């Protein structure tokens, strides 16, 4: 076999690969995520304060803030800016609701080219689908636990 001529075993090679592969700069990425995510949350808080001053009650206000953030992120995705923000902020722009919006809009833009039904329609949740499915299942599970443990 060809591979035995190169290294003794897959394990040996794994070790070599680990040594040769640079790690992601975790500390730097964490700081950038903190800044990026922090700014997004500050914008959310700002919107909350503004909407409160217009007299919206808590529930309406929270929903309005989500809708506005989702709308802005979707627009920025369409303009090609959110991927740049994402490259800088990483988890900071993935975790907030704006990241969810991006993960739905990005496939929508890409697969619209394959038609509205089998393209956009079928593939819009290729990235967000797992979050929706397992998020829903988890909430059902937590709901059942809450019902009995309350």
């Amino acid at each position, binding site marked *: 076999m*060809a591979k035995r*001529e*190169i*290294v003794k075993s*897959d394990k040996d090679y794994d070790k*070599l690969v680990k040594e*040769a592969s640079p790690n992601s700069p975790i500390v730097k990425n964490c700081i950038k995520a903190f800044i990026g995510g922090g700014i997004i949350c500050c914008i959310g808080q700002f919107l909350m304060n503004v909407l409160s001053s217009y007299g919206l009650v808590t529930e309406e206000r929270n929903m309005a803030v989500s809708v506005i953030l989702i709308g802005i992120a979707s627009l920025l995705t369409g303009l090609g800016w*959110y991927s740049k923000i*994402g*490259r800088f902020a990483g988890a900071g722009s993935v975790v907030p609701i704006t990241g969810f919006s991006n993960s739905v809009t990005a496939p929508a833009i890409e697969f619209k080219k394959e038609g509205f039904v089998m393209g956009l329609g079928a593939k819009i949740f290729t990235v967000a689908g797992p979050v929706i499915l397992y998020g829903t299942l988890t909430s059902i599970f937590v709901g059942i636990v809450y019902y009995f443990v309350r």
Partner: protein
Amino acid sequence: MALKVGLTSLKFENGVNIKSVSSVAGTKEGEGPLKEYIDILVNDNLYGQKTWEKAETEFVKKAVETAAQKAALSLNNIDYILAGDLQNQSAASCFGVKDFKRPFFGLFGACSTFGEGLSLGAVLIDSGCGKNVMCEASSHFSAAEAQFRFPPELGNQRPQTSTWTVTGAGAAVLSDEGSEPKITGITTGKIVDLGITDANNMGAAMAPAAADVLLNHFKDFSAAPESYDRIFTGDLGSVGSKLLIELLREKGYDIQKQHRDCGMLIYDSDKQDTHAGGSGCACSAITFSMIYKRLLTGEYNKILFMPTGALMNPSSVAQGESILGICHIVMIERQV
């Protein structure tokens, strides 16, 4: 006639002439260190089309036309077109060459396709089956991202070991006459599988295949690294290059002085945020323009050109199969 040398190599006694070489590339490549060697720089990765896939088709067409033009040949004089790309069922190549109405062999060798094309093209010419053969390979960053990873507009960070798929196409016309640099031998790679499953570390998956074929080449031709001015791997990137050098060092060969990687030449990884380097069929195919020019000017006399490929598809990766490596060596000499 071609001579079988050793177990995996062929030697072309008279050499197969590389009559012309062309390259067409996208925006990011046009901002990179190789821009002066690229024939046509397109400042629009959609190339005036509606989709990335159609854009890649345009890159293919343009590369083929330009190579024929530079060889002063009409496309009717091309006996065969050998082409491949990364799209499902090599769609970009098929659509790209259909209007030329020439006999066509579609190739798939992942990012090693250009090496596969040059190898087979040289065999066709040397065996007298054709006077002029067109070899072409292409890739497109966004088409590859959408197919293998995520839609391009998704805002995520790429790991340090990942590479950036080159957007563009490269082509070469091989001919039975002329006094340009010649293909004097090929060593055909075997599939090597060392169990790498990380699709974001393809350099690691391909390095063993490159090491294997290079060891075979040295054996078959009784050669050593010093026999060549340069040894160009396709798209190992910084991680794969490190591994290749290490694997060969263990076998007693030091190629550090001669080795260059097309993936590390095509972008400036610090300024262009490409991490480990460039990849894709077009990576080696476009860099070949630079190599060819330096052969013409006499900067190099004898080189090895060895495009590397990671063989897999999205399903095989998702199902946990390892990523297979392959690499083909094309030996090119300025004068025979």
